[in-house]
């Protein structure tokens, strides 16, 4: 495909879509599929066919529409009417296109002017729910691969990096390292072979942002990676994706094949001198592989154990070559930055954290699902306006950052969500999992749960993490059984500091975070377990001697 052909495809496909009476989008992300979205989509297609409207109505599967709690979701009337909890028996009404027929669905229509939608700003998720992830032409019609074309024809590699630096984009994997600086580091290395790696090993329990992006808009990630390859001078990219994400893997494979066929990947992309290949590497269920050096070891076919840094991967990474590792969401932000410019991106968010962040809302919240908000949005807005609040019970804490993060209590609900503010209150931005807990959740048990996770997932290479997580878990377990003393509490705090200071990689260094943040804000719960052998939340079954 040449650039002229790309433009032509975009014009043709847009014209074809506009000539239709209606496009009906069925959410076919993993959440809706498990509520029967595939059957529903087939039923609607069948109905359209039997009513003889195939030439006027197109039924497409799309990525995540966000409101996972109301699935399966169907967006009718080319994206202006959203229905939730749709069943195959609704198919005739949806297929007819007659507003009168759709009246039985009125009570299940979701208000698109609700805060859930109006408070969001969608950059990464712009196409999710509106573009068929299995059709390349759909992505092209939405402006896809234009940024890659622009980068290849109008910008020199240093100019691409300059644009990313201007945007102020920071790594979305959790640590928040400035993306432009990382790119510059890799581009300055003198080496004939460099690699781009996309970290899609989304292991935090409670996080499903990356999965949704890969399932809903895989081409966007490929395009972002190709632009990165052009900017830093790499010809080969790898996407390291979790083995648990079957659908994401399948859609990525389809997308890579489509892009290669149209010369949007491979050698001589868009008839330019630049070539870039992307291969998938499937993870095998090790949380520690989200750590960049462990991920590199895993791509090389070894046990996923981290190594000492420096040298950092930009100097010596995959097969000892300069390697750029970014998260899925980071790459997904690249095409809009190149299209609209770094200054546009920098105008969104806070002075230190630019752009938007995708969050996965889960736990005790009305609207579980996927959202994207500008950086700096208050937690209260996210949880109560967008999330719809707590269905029953009272808000107790919001957990961000998974096993490396912390619990945020009610008094900090007005904290703006950005890297620095969250760190100040003892949590982290993390990759974007946001789990809401109500009165029924025991914070000691939550800390125990995360410590058990870190204990199981510790790779065993360094002693502080391997032995420390076991010791900390044992103390927490005994607390939930009502079998701990004040000395144990002191030991827990000592171990927390030890792990943080002496572990080799991020897993061990951040493993004490959930303990430290719950101790900071919910110390009385720990004390009740120890002194009174009582669980204030009524969660731990202390009398029976069984952990809840």
């Amino acid at each position, binding site marked *: 495909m040449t650039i002229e052909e790309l433009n032509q495809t975009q014009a043709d496909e847009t014209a074809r879509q506009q000539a239709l009476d209606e496009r009906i989008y069925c959410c076919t992300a*993993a*959440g809706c*599929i*498990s*509520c029967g979205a595939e059957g529903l989509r087939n039923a609607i297609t069948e109905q359209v066919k039997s009513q003889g409207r195939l030439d006027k109505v197109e039924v497409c599967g799309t990525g995540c529409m966000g409101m*996972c*709690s109301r*699935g399966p979701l169907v967006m009718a009337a080319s994206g202006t009417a959203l229905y939730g909890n749709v069943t195959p028996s609704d198919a005739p009404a949806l297929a007819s296109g007659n507003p009168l027929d759709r009246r039985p669905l009125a009570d299940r229509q979701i208000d698109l002017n609700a805060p859930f939608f109006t408070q969001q700003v969608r950059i990464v998720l712009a196409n999710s729910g509106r573009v068929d992830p299995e059709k390349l032409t759909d992505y092209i019609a939405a402006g896809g691969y234009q940024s890659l074309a622009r980068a290849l024809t109008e910008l020199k590699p240093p100019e691409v990096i300059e644009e990313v630096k201007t945007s102020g984009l920071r790594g979305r994997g959790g640590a928040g390292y400035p993306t432009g600086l990382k790119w510059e580091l890799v581009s300055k290395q003198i080496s004939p072979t460099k690699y781009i790696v996309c970290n899609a090993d*989304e*292991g*935090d*329990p*409670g*996080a*499903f942002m990356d*999965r949704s992006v890969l399932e809903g808009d895989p081409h966007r990630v490929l395009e972002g990676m190709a632009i990165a390859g052009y900017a830093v001078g790499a010809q080969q990219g790898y996407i390291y994706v*979790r*083995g*648990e*994400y*079957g659908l994401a893997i399948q859609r990525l494979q389809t997308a890579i094949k489509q892009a290669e066929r149209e010369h949007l990947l491979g050698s001589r992309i868009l008839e330019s001198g630049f070539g870039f290949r992307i291969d998938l*590497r*499937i*993870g*095998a*269920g*090790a*949380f520690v592989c989200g750590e960049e050096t462990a991920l590199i070891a*895993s*791509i*090389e*076919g*070894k*046990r*996923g154990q981290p190594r000492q840094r420096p040298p950092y991967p930009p100097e010596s990474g995959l097969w000892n070559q300069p390697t750029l590792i970014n998260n899925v969401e980071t790459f997904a932000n690249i095409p809009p930055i190149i299209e609209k410019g770094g200054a546009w991106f920098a105008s969104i968010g806070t002075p230190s954290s630019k752009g938007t962040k995708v969050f*996965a*809302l*889960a*736990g*005790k919240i009305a609207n*579980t*699902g*996927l959202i994207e908000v500008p950086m700096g949005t208050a937690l209260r807005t996210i949880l109560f306006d967008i999330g719809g609040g707590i269905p029953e019970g009272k808000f107790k804490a919001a*957990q961000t950052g*998974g096993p490396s993060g912390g619990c945020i209590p009610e008094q900090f609900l007005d904290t703006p969500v950005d890297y620095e503010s969250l760190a100040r209150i003892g949590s982290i931005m993390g990759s974007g*999992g946001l*789990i809401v*807990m109500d009165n029924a*959740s025991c914070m000691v048990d*939550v800390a125990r*749960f*995360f410590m058990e*996770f870190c204990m*199981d*997932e510790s*790779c065993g290479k360094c002693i502080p993490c391997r032995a420390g997580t076991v010791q900390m878990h044992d103390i927490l377990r005994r607390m939930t059984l009502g079998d701990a003393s004040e000395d144990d509490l002191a030991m827990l705090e000592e171990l927390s500091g030890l792990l943080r200071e002496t572990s080799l990689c991020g897993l061990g260094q951040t493993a004490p975070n959930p303990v430290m943040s719950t101790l900071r804000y919910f110390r009385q719960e720990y004390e009740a377990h120890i002194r009174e052998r009582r669980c204030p939340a009524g969660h731990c079954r202390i009398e029976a001697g069984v952990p*809840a």
Partner: protein
Amino acid sequence: MEEWRFAIQIAAFSGRGDPTPIAETEKPLPAAVKDNRDKLLERAMSRHQYSGDALIEVLHTAQELYGFLSPERLKTIARKLRLPPSRVLGVASFYHFFSLEPKGEHTMVVCLGTACYVAGALGLVEVLQRRCGAGSKVSVQTARCIGSCGLAPAVIADGKILARVTKASLGAELDRIG
């Protein structure tokens, strides 16, 4: 160094005679299909030019084809990829995804991610452990987070995600499998 490693490999494989001792311990399948599986695994290895770097991809393929990774299979892979058997076993046992033992006819994976945990997934594990003890057709596993947090608590029954599972609906599913 290389010679030393080679000697270890020889020692590990000596007395094994036939280079592909496919165990009888795996599910009996028609000979044609079984032969085909060996061929498919071979093809996967040759696609990666028998490179040791592709070990994890090869193990994925082997597990997909045979359901689990037997010691014999691991040794075969080690020899073909010219890796020390210790490294192959080391990798296979490091990752949760690889199973070194045969699985039951059905598998139930209970997600124990945070959202599922706060929604009571441990209760589901208890139900499964009570009902699917030794000799059951159902293998019970837990997962760290399957990323379906909007559907908590979630269970994967034979590859299909069940959403908002209750003890009762899980019992019904077990009755259905039989």
